[in-house]
């Protein structure tokens, strides 16, 4: 039930092993996000992720705890990177262990939808056409609001 905000690449295999290691849950779900080589028509070669360190830790910790309580998780983990990332590198990894698949999968979706709008990270894309800050997508907002409207996930 921990959070890591780190510059280093995410060791997905190691994270998975650590997540399930001591927790004999029946259902394990994880999500891994990678740097895309494009956004719409813009080609992307490098993604710079700025963050607010103290707040990022607090927000992600609270988010994991909320997911744990809401979905009855046996274990959870959130890893988010910052700094300069190349195409194909990992950006984010979340994992959830529960008694049943529904809770584990929903918890991962909830953690991802919420961290995208609530955790203080900002993406700046760099490509052949130049550099620009990524704008919040309406779609992300809608996915976030969904969880406020649904009862108990």
């Amino acid at each position, binding site marked *: 039930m921990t959070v890591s905000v780190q510059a280093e690449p995410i060791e997905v295999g190691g994270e998975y092993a650590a997540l399930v290691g001591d927790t004999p849950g029946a259902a394990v779900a994880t999500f891994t996000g990678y740097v895309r080589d494009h956004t719409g028509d813009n080609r992307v070669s490098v993604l710079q*992720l700025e963050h*607010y360190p103290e707040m990022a830790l607090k927000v992600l910790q609270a988010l994991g705890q909320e997911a744990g309580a809401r979905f009855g998780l046996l274990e959870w983990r959130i890893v988010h990177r910052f700094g300069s990332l190349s195409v194909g590198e990992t950006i*984010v990894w979340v994992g959830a262990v529960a008694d049943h698949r529904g809770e584990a999968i929903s918890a991962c979706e909830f953690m991802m939808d919420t*961290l*995208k709008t609530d955790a203080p990270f900002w993406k700046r894309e760099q490509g052949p056409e130049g550099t620009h800050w990524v704008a*919040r997508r309406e779609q992300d907002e809608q996915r976030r609001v969904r969880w406020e409207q649904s009862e108990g996930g």
Partner: protein
Amino acid sequence: MSITIKLFASLREALGEAEFPLALETLPAADIVDGAVSVAAIKSALCTRGAQWQEALNQPNLVHALNHKVVYVDAMVADGDELALFPPMTGG
């Protein structure tokens, strides 16, 4: 009495500052209530620094975080607090 202002992402870039102290005594006396000042009053005070500040701080969807928690502009900021201003978050 002083607070810390932090700016992030496009806001930090536009204003060329990442972090600076702000003495509450420099704000209009009428804005100080029991030693605290609203986020809105702090923004107004910062807007007097020039057109660039005005434009950057009046953008819609600007987020305010007081001691690492997102707040509305009516939140009260007191001595020692940290107020961060930034555009909507785009992590994940």
